[in-house]
């Protein structure tokens, strides 16, 4: 049952014009930026403008697309009555959510793979491009975390439009507003308070969590500055890796659980 639903959902998602457009757009922008940077700059290990733009393109675009498309697809199911129809089949709510989640993850992994393939091909044509393993892992983490958040937003939204606007709000909150708020607070409070707040924000903002993860796992934690020496040293230890895994796992499961609860509460059955 579950795999049938997954197939159905995946087919629906891949068929949608939106998704195809997003796939093309993402591939195009991603490839353009990476290849331009690659060609313009010498190849150097470490954190450079090239890696920075790589990371930023990833963090800017992927969450935006996943959140909007994922949430709208769930909200659309509910709005159009498709979800109610599905409920007549012998299928639990959890099965629906997991199926939807898996479909979203698979669809976006496909998009990402197309983009990476294009970068490799074009980069190879122009003299070779580096695609570090950390980046690939991080991209996958980005997909699994934000797909989960997208499902949760969809479950909370009444309509597709509402889901869209909510995704945009959450996206700008994670990518921009939270950082700006923190920077603004930093101008009035002491350094050690700003440092502690930043550490909190790293854990409650999935975008920051992924960015932080990049620095940890690519061994470039010194980029974050001496103020974060203690935190980065902890996360560079084995216990730190385990904690990183646990927090990441929570970021995947908690939104799905809350989506389940919300659908139950709303009783869209």
């Amino acid at each position, binding site marked *: 049952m579950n795999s049938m639903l997954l197939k159905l959902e995946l087919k629906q998602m891949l068929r949608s014009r939106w998704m195809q457009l997003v796939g093309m757009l993402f591939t195009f922008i991603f490839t353009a930026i990476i290849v331009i940077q690659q060609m313009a700059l*010498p190849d150097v290990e470490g954190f450079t*403008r090239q890696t920075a733009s790589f990371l930023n393109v990833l963090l800017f675009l992927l969450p935006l697309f996943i959140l909007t498309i994922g949430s709208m697809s769930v909200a659309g199911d509910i709005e159009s009555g498709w979800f109610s129809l599905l409920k007549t089949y012998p299928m639990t709510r959890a099965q629906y959510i997991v199926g939807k989640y898996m479909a979203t993850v698979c669809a976006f992994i496909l998009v990402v793979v197309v983009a990476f393939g294009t970068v490799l091909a074009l980069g190879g044509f122009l003299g070779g491009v580096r695609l570090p393993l950390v980046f690939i892992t991080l991209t996958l983490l980005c997909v699994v975390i934000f797909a989960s958040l997208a499902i949760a937003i969809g479950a909370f939204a009444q309509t597709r439009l509402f889901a869209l606007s909510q995704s945009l709000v959450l996206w700008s909150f994670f990518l*921009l507003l939270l950082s700006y708020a923190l920077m603004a607070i930093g101008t009035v409070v002491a350094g050690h308070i700003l440092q502690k707040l930043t550490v909190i924000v790293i854990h409650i903002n999935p975008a920051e969590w992924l960015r932080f993860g990049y620095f940890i796992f690519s061994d470039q934690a*010194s*980029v974050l*500055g001496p103020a974060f020496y203690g935190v980065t040293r902890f996360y560079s230890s084995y216990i730190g890796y385990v904690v990183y895994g646990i927090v990441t796992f929570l970021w995947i499961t908690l939104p799905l659980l809350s989506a389940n609860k919300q659908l139950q509460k709303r009783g869209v059955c």
Partner: protein
Amino acid sequence: MMKKVGSVLLFLLFMSQTVYADFDIQKAIDRAKPGATITIPAGQYKGNFVLTKKITLRGIQGTELVALGNEPVFRIDGGSTVTIENMALSGNKQAIVASDVDGLELRNLNIKDSHTGVYIQRSKNVHIQHIEMTGNNSHFSKKGNGLAIFKSEDVVVEDTNIKLVQDGIYVEEVKNILVQNNRVTNSRYGTHFMYSSNVQAFHNTYRNNVTGFMVMMTNDIYVKDNHLENHNGLNSYGMLLYDAQQAVLELNTIMNNRTGVALQKSVGITIASNDFRMNQTALEGIMVKGNSVATNNQFTGNILTARADRQGFLLTNNYYDDYSGIDLKNDGIGDVPYVAVSSFGQWMVRQPVYQYFVASPSVVLLTSLDQQINKTEKTVLVDVTPKLMTHQITKKNETNFQQLLIGLLIVTTSMWLWKRGVS
């Protein structure tokens, strides 16, 4: 038979060590007439030797001197024209200590297992050449310097290769010093100038240290053709000038450092024709005074080109790879100013915790807004005559077929999957 020959050879080898070690260096020194040359045969010698007169000590291949206790191998007190060359030295605290010497030459020395390599004070006409020194892997605070020179005059240090020490070449209160063709890696500072004057540094290569050049309270500085690379620690700089006066830094390559060049409390600094590549911050200025200027430099791939406090410093005629203006007048100069000032850069100068946000999505957006807003302002850190590319380093891009094929394979496979998923 072979075994027998082998053991005889082994015996000879063992004997040769002990036999030559019977050569009494101190006795030879004491007996020598001023200006004499003593050749020390190969072998390992233990002891602490004192030189007080004009003399040349020359080792040959395999001459190795080991200090006893905390005294150095050679203590040179006073005298003139002392030369030590061609030998391996190890001292617990220092290998060589020289005081009040006029005309000291140290050449072709290999120093190991020493806290500090060479310690020189109150000397004149010092020439140090071809020193190899390797420290250990402990923390910088537990190690000594490679070469430490205090209160001296007319010093040349060249062709040394120093690794894993505190400061590669530490220079304090020295007048007229030339440091060239040296190589310092994995140490705290490559070269550390303090309270010195008339300082020249050419063709040095410093890599993977905390900081390449640390220049403090020093004046009349000329730094040219050096390579400062990979200074990427938590508090690293390619070069830091603190309270320095009248310096010219030109034609250096400053690549992949946390901060390329930082000026603090410094006066009259000219930064010309350097190549700043892939640094997190290329140039930093705090409390810079008196006609300090960065001109004709090339900034490529730095995350932040320049940051400063309100005082700033002058940027003129540089090339910036992220400059977006055009040149309608076709005079090689961009028509609109290049804006290097950014709110984020200023915050980072004030409060180091902000470094966390370096190149984060929010800051990238903020910085591009800054550039639009500040374009009209004629403030600090604005280059009104940005240069357009003059000479591009053209590197040949050879197609990487393997990668190309893998890429194409991935794209076609995933496209096919997509197609299949739809139908």
